[in-house]
């Protein structure tokens, strides 16, 4: 993992949340990333995966089985809690309010998508930046590119899956095109980076107590 960042470049005390946007090829990519995140991970992870509107809950169940963290569907007005992985429900946009709760909308599709990655990322940037980590994974869409730029403009961290190894390279490439991203990594690298951030966060919280 020669391209893993040096720890001193990371501002661990800053980070409050992780948002992930993923489309085609998402199930496999998410399985790999979530499998690398250790139990006790101290940040909420909020995911928009483009889905068919009538998709059932099987995605949540599959991901829950392969992660040490609890994976659930985000519910309207639910407070965002650290250490949980949330998926946007099919056919609704997922937003984060300034008070750290989820809200949903059935507003028009954005980038032909509902849920849209941009909608999540932009509202999350308002709620968490500069303490937000935004990640774009595989997909055949340009959704998420504008949202990732907003995160970066707000002082957050931008991570993109290396298009060369992505199942679908269009979405990662669009994100890299739109933003000066902090890290371009393969799925293993992203999982490990998150694990490092999670571990340091735990240490920092212990020191504080």
């Amino acid at each position: 993992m020669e391209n893993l960042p040096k720890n001193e470049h990371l501002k661990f005390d800053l980070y409050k949340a992780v948002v992930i946007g993923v489309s085609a090829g998402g199930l496999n990519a998410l399985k790999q990333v979530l499998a690398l995140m250790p139990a006790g991970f101290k940040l909420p992870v909020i995911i928009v995966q483009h889905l068919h509107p009538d998709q059932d809950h099987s995605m949540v169940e599959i991901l829950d089985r392969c992660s040490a963290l609890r994976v659930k569907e985000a519910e309207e007005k639910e407070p965002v809690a650290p250490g949980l992985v949330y998926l946007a429900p099919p056919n609704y946009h997922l937003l984060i309010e300034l008070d750290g709760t989820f809200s949903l909308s059935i507003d028009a599709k954005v980038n032909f998508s509902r849920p849209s990655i941009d909608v999540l990322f932009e509202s999350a940037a308002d709620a968490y930046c500069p303490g937000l980590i935004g990640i774009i994974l595989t997909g055949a869409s340009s959704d998420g590119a504008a949202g990732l730029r907003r995160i970066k403009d707000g002082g957050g961290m931008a991570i993109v899956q290396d298009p060369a190894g992505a199942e679908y390279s269009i979405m990662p490439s669009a994100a890299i095109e739109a933003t000066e991203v902090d890290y371009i990594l393969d799925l293993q690298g992203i999982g490990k980076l998150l694990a490092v951030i999670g571990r340091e966060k735990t240490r920092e919280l212990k020191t504080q107590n």
Partner: protein
Amino acid sequence: MRKEEIEDIEINLLLQGIYSRYGHDFRNYARGSVKRRILNFMAKVDQKTVSGLISLVLHDEAFFEKFVRELSITVSEMFRDPEFFKLLRNQVIPYLKTHPFIKIWHAGCATGEEVHSLAIVLKEEGFYERSTIFATDFNDSALMNAREGIYPMERMQEFTANYQRSGGTGPFAGYYRAAYGAAIFDPSLRKNIVFANHNLATDGVFSEMHLVVCRNVLIYFDRNLQNRTLKLFRDSLAHGGVLALGSKEDLQFSEVAGDFKILDAKWKIYQKTSI
């Protein structure tokens, strides 16, 4: 101060100004979606700051009308959540049929896609002639669209698929005629629908309803406004009346939870048990 924080102050001022000037109350709306719509509108009218928008909205009524339309319209689809409409057809309507005559309130009908869907179900179940539907929204231009029942032809494929999956019994194309790239829905569907302006944030109850349908409206409200609205529905329903909410809208943690029992947990269909 961060740019976002300043913008938040500006949005508070804008919403307060709209309330004082026009009586439309968006102050208790979930902020995330409101902000998105405001920023979209600013891009359309080429305004750089919310403060710039405030002046236009307060001084120019026609401009405000345009703005309020952007702020409030939800473009729905016909037979959104086909499974819900199947339940309505197979579980709720048989119960309603035990009444000689029923009143339905469709609250927040926007441009009317769902109320037309409801009318179709009632027709196919042979109960339309014994029903009166009050379809309300606070947005007059959306109500005008709902009254016309004209939707883009390009959406018919999606609507037809939804209709078929909801247990529809007729050819869907029999309910509209195509003209100029639009689908014009049959006026007979609207014969027993009364369209009216009603604002859930500021207006009062309807009396003795047998069914209240209000789907995906509460998600745009904060907890206070949600509770206000749910009490309005409770007080508008007859004993034993049915309340249908959106699939992500739960009564469980609201102030009226004790007044209802659950008929369907997944699709959020409730029955009023209090007097």
